[in-house]
C-alpha cells in the first residue's frame, strides 16, 4: 500500500512538471520523454531480469516489434495507431513465447545467449526484408489520432508517463502476489523453487510475456513520437544493453532502481551527445576551444557516450553490483 501511494505521488508530480517547464522548452521536454521511456523500458526488463533473475540481452526485439509493427501498419495499411500498437503487442508476445519455449527448459548462460540470437535474427530479417524498409527504415510524415496533434511532444510525455506508471504498478502488484514470490524464488534457487511446487518454465514465460508486452508498447510510442525508425535505432543490441545497464546502476530487482538509473544515465548520455560537457569545460576556462584538446573533445565527445557506458558498466559490476539502491537496502 505504501508503495502504491508513492507511485501515485510520483505520477502526480511528474504529470505537473511540464506546466512549470512549459511548451516553449521542447528540448527539455524531449529529454524528459527519453528519461520516462528508458525508465519504463528498464522497469519492464526488471520484471524478467530483476525479479525472475533471467537476464534478457535481447529486449530490443520487443521494442522493435512494437515500433515496426505500428509504423508498418500505419504506413502500408493506414490503420489506426492504436491497432498498430495492439498488433505490436501480439508480435512481441509471439517472440517472447517462442524464445521462452526454446530456452526456459535450460539453465545458466543459455537464456542470455538465446535472447541475443533471437534479437539478432529479427534485426537482420528486418534489415533484409523490403516491407520493413530495409536499411533505409521507415519515415512517416504525419500521424493523427482522434484529432490529437501528434506532432507536439506533450501527448508522448503523458503517454510515456502513463506507461511507466502502469509498469511500476504491475511490478508492485506482482511483487506482492504469488507470481512475484515465485519469480524471486526462481531467481534465488531454481532447485529449491521447483521442489516447492513452482513450475519454472511457466513462471519464467509469464514474466517474460508481461515484460515483452510492456516493452513493445514503449516501442510503439517511440515510433509514433519520432516517426522515423531503422534497425540501428530500435533493434540494436546496444539498446538491449542500455536497458540492462539502467537497471543495474539503479538497482536490479528493486521497484525504483530502474527509474533512478534512467534519471542518471539518460541526461548523462544526452550531455555527452550534445557536447554539453565539452562546451562546459570551455566555458569554465578549463580547456581552450582552439587548443588541440578542445578540438579533440569537440570532435569526439559526442561519440564517446557508448565508451562512457562501457566504463560505467565495468565500474558498476566491480564496485556496485547491487546498484545505487542496493547500497540503501538494509538487512532488517
Amino acid at each position, binding site marked *: 500500500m505504501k508503495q502504491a501511494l508513492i507511485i501515485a505521488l510520483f505520477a502526480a508530480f511528474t504529470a505537473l512538471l511540464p506546466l512549470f517547464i512549459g511548451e516553449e522548452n521542447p528540448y527539455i521536454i524531449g529529454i524528459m520523454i527519453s528519461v520516462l521511456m528508458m525508465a519504463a523500458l528498464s522497469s519492464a526488463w526488471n520484471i524478467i531480469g530483476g525479479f525472475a533473475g533471467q537476464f534478457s540481452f535481447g529486449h530490443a526485439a520487443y521494442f522493435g516489434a512494437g515500433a515496426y509493427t505500428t509504423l508498418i501498419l500505419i504506413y502500408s495499411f493506414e490503420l489506426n495507431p492504436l491497432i498498430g500498437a495492439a498488433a505490436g503487442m501480439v508480435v512481441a508476445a509471439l517472440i517472447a513465447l517462442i524464445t521462452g519455449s526454446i530456452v526456459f527448459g535450460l539453465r545458466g548462460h543459455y537464456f542470455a545467449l538465446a535472447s541475443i540470437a533471437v534479437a539478432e535474427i529479427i534485426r537482420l530479417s528486418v534489415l533484409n526484408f523490403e516491407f520493413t524498409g530495409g536499411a533505409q527504415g521507415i519515415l512517416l510524415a504525419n500521424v493523427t489520432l482522434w484529432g490529437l496533434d501528434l506532432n507536439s511532444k506533450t501527448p508522448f510525455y503523458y503517454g510515456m508517463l502513463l506507461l511507466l506508471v502502469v509498469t511500476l504498478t504491475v511490478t508492485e502488484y506482482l511483487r506482492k502476489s504469488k507470481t512475484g514470490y515465485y519469480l524471486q524464488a526462481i531467481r534465488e*534457487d531454481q*532447485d529449491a523453487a521447483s521442489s*516447492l*511446487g513452482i513450475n519454472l518454465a511457466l513462471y519464467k514465460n509469464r514474466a517474460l510475456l508481461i515484460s515483452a508486452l510492456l516493452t513493445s508498447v514503449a516501442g510503439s510510442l517511440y515510433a509514433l513520437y519520432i516517426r522515423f525508425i531503422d534497425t540501428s535505432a530500435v533493434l540494436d543490441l546496444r539498446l538491449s544493453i542500455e536497458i540492462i545497464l539502467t537497471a543495474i546502476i539503479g538497482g536490479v530487482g528493486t521497484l525504483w532502481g530502474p527509474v533512478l538509473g534512467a534519471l542518471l544515465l539518460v541526461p548523462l548520455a544526452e550531455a555527452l551527445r550534445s557536447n554539453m560537457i565539452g562546451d562546459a569545460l570551455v566555458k569554465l576556462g578549463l580547456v581552450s576551444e582552439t587548443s588541440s584538446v578542445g578540438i579533440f573533445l569537440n570532435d569526439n565527445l559526442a561519440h564517446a557516450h557508448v565508451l562512457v557506458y562501457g566504463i560505467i558498466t565495468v565500474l558498476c559490476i566491480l564496485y556496485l553490483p547491487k546498484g545505487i539502491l542496493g547500497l540503501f537496502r538494509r*538487512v*532488517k
Partner: protein
Amino acid sequence: MSEPILKINKVSKHFGGNIAVSDVTFAVEKNRIFGLIGPNGAGKTTLFNCMTGFVPITSGEVIFNNRKINNLRPDAVCRIGMVRTWQRVKPLSSLSVLDNVMVGAFAITGSAGAARKIAVEKLAQVGLADYSAKLAGSLSIGLKKKLELARVLATRPEMLLLDEICGGLNHTETASILQLIRDVREEGTTILFIEHDMKAVTSICERIVVLNSGVKLAEGTPAEITSNPEVIAAYLGGGFDA
C-alpha cells in the same frame, strides 16, 4: 499393516557406466517415520532425486498414492503432496525468512494473505518466529535447517522426504528437530528420513532400509537393523556414532 503410501519398485539409476542405485524395492506405510540409511555414496540422495523428479530413473517405478510418478517434474511431485528438503540447505538467501516460508505456502493457496498466515504459523511451530524479518541467507546452519522444515511444512505435504535434516547440528538442535518431526507425524504426515546420525535414526524411525553401494542391504525395525551382522559389517563397524 496399513496401506503403503509410497512404493519403490525395482528402481535403478545409472549415470553413464556408474550404477548409483540398483534394483531397490521397498514400501512406506502411511503415517510412519521411515529411515533410509547407508554409508556415503550408498545412493540415498540419488534415490531422493529419482523419487522427486530431479533426475530421470533408468528403470523401475515410483508409486505414490497408487499413482506412478516416474515422469513427473519436481514441481508436480510437490503439488501431489510429496516434498523434499535438501542435504545442502537451499535458502532463498536474499528473501526474508517469512517470505521463504510464504513461497512454500503458495503451493496450497493463491492469496498472499493466506500464505502469510500459514507462514507465521509454521515459523512459530519450528521456533523461528523471532527471525521472520531476517534475511534467510544470514541465518546459522541450524536455523537454516529449521527454515527448510518450516518451508516444506507450509506446503501441507502428505509425505516429507528429509535429506539429512540433522546433519551438522549439535545435540540440542538435533533433539528439537526430532521432536518437531514426531509432532508432524502426529498431524498425519508420513516421513521418509535419510540420516547419517544412527542415534537419531534408531530413536525415531519405526522401520529402516539400509542401502550400500546402491543396493538394498537390509530392511527391518531399528532393533533388527542394529543387530544385523551384514549391516554391522558394511556400515556400523565403527559403532553407532558412525
